[in-house]
Every structure is written in C-alpha cells, then in structure tokens.
C-alpha cells in the first residue's frame, strides 16, 4: 500500500517539475515520465491511480505541441498550457491518505456509523447519568445503571466512561464503552461541580457522596 502511495506522489509531482524547467531538461523528464507512466498503468487497481491516469495521458498528448510552441513563442505560451495542465490535476486530486492517518479515519467512520443509530450526548466527568443496557447475558430488557461519571477515556470508537455508584452498601464501578450497540439509551440526569478530570478521590470519601437514588 505504501509503495503505491509513493508512486502516485511521484507521478503527481513530475508534471509540476516538468513545466517549470527549461527545454533542455525536458527530454530527460519525458523519458523518465514515460517509464513511470507505463509502470503505473500496469498497477491500476486502486481508486487514486484510476482517475489520475487520465490527466496524465492528456498531458502526454499535449507535450508535442507544447514543445513546438515553447521554442517559437515566449513565456506567455509556456505559462498557458502550464496553467491548464496544472488546474486539471489540482481539481481532481484528493488529499493523499498517509499511513499514519488510517486508524484515525477508520475510527471516525465507526463513530459516525454508531452516532447515526444512536446519538450520544455530550458527557463530561462529574455528570450523573443513567444508562439502559441490554446484554444477551442478562437476557431480560434494560438493566439500568445510574451513577456519577468519574472518568472519560477518549480512544475513538472505544471511548469509555467510568460510572461509580453505591449499590446496596457496596461501591461499584463500571466501565462502559460509549459507542457500544448494547447501550440502548444514555441520559444525563444531573451534574456536579468538579474541578478534576478523574474523580478517583471518591473511592476514599464517604459513601454518601457516591449514592444516587
């Protein structure tokens, strides 16, 4: 995948070099350009290469008349086809997707897909939330989980919130993935003023502070 990206980058850069240099460099570049074009067309299988092949073919067709025009006329002629040919690849060129961006893009897509099915409200640390969960393990509908959000970890699709509550005298903390399809509903029922992103101090405090009716 990486090598294909590199060749497309090289291909896109070559036309710009070609038009800005003088005539003496042209034959060399044309020769190298030809060879590159041949290799690309043999590998045409990705979407990027598919649409890029057409403007390159058009450029090669125009190369003949361009050379003649450059020798006969002045700078004006040189700039005209340059502008035309430049505009075409500029308009059709998509931003090149680098290897490091792929996970971010996949995460964003997954989050959008999950948001479409069930929108997730804005949840911050210190909110008191109510979550309706439907787990195949528990079979029957809607276990209800209420509690204060003591932390939020952002990790794309696995963004989680940690909910703390005192149930039957014992403190329970549950970590929920926000974009899980098991969660049927998240509702923010209140908010508490906090000056921290992680409220782990609540574990040491009185149970009264973590109790929610």
């Amino acid at each position, binding site marked *: 995948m990486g090598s294909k990206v590199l060749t497309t980058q090289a291909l896109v850069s070559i036309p710009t070099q070609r038009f800005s240099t003088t005539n003496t460099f042209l034959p060399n570049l044309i020769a190298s350009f030809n060879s590159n074009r041949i290799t690309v067309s043999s590998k045409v299988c990705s979407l990027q290469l598919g649409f890029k092949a057409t403007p390159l073919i058009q450029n090669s067709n125009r190369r003949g008349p361009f050379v003649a025009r450059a020798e006969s006329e002045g700078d004006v002629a040189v700039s005209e086809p340059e502008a035309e040919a430049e505009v075409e690849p500029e308009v059709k060129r998509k931003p090149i997707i680098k290897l490091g961006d792929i996970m971010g893009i996949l995460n964003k897509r997954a989050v959008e897909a999950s948001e479409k099915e069930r929108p997730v409200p804005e949840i911050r640390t210190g909110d008191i939330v109510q979550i309706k969960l439907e787990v195949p393990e528990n079979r029957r509908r809607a276990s209800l989980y209420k509690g204060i959000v003591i932390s939020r970890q952002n990790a794309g699709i696995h963004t989680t919130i940690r909910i703390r509550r005192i149930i*039957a005298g*014992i403190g*329970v*903390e*549950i*970590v*929920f*993935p926000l974009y899980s399809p098991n969660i049927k509903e998240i509702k923010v029922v209140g908010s508490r003023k906090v000056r921290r992103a992680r409220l*782990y101090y609540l*574990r040491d405090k009185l149970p009264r502070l973590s109790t929610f009716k």
Partner: protein
Amino acid sequence: MAQRFASKCSTVGHSLLGSLFNNSSGVLRSSHEIMGSIGCSNFLSQQHRTFIQMGTKLKVVDNSGAKIVKCIRANKGSSSKGARLGDTITASVKQAQPRGKVKKGEVVYGVVVRAAMQRGRCDGSEIKFDDNAVVLVNKQGEPVGTRVFGPVPHELRKKKHLKILTLGDYIV
C-alpha cells in the same frame, strides 16, 4: 514501584504481602500517593488490584455463620495466578458467628461474588467492586446459607451459580 515488587512477591507465593496489598491499608496507600506526587506517572498513585490468591481475606456475605475467610487455594477453574470474579476458592474460616452452620477453623468452598480487581465482559465493559466477598458453597456448588447480601454480578449466570443470583438483592 512497591506495587510491582508486591506482584513479584505474590507470584512467588508470599501470603503476607499478598494479603497486605489486597486489603486496602491506608498507610500503604498514602505512601503510594506521596510517590505519585513526586514524579511517578499518574496511574501508580492508584492501587493496582490483582487476583484473589492464597492468604487473601474475604468477607462472607451470606448467613452461613462465617464472617471472614482466608483463601487457601484458587480452584481449578481459575487461572494459575489466582481467582477472579465468579471463580470458586477453597478457604479457611477465620472468624465466625457463635451459632452458625460453619465454625471457625473449617475448610470451606466459596464463590467470589465481589472482587476489587476489574473483570472484563464480552461487550467491552468492565466491572469492579470496592471489596472482596464470597458466598460459601458446598462441593456441588449449592450455597450453604439461605440469604445473600449486597450486589452480585451476572458473571455468575455463566458460571452456573444461578441459586446465588436469585438469592442476591441486586444483580449488577
């Protein structure tokens, strides 16, 4: 640092340190917090909970008569490192009520219904409790007592401890 030392010790099998770190002792935790404020990464200032292993003291949350048991062995179902939420352990009764079904010094089996170590579920969520607790059972897995206090997780359903699930007052 002290936590890693403790985890190394517990793999060797020193019961003393294991029980020290599993019971939340205020002295040790405050020293962790001091270390955390000096320059260690943030997660070190919180306790890193581990398995229930030999020497762990657990609360008994049924009316079988025992109050505190000490784990002798994490039974076959659990990992080699120790027992987790939902596993069975062999334990010795350390403290018991005067008139109960079990007496002090007896060797009993128990099902861990609350563990301070988080247990992951198959949907990506995790659950952890504030303390370690067991319900005493017999060899067949039936509870010795008739009532269970406190919340119980629904990991017990998969482990086929349905009787304990129905006896509990709150299924988390």
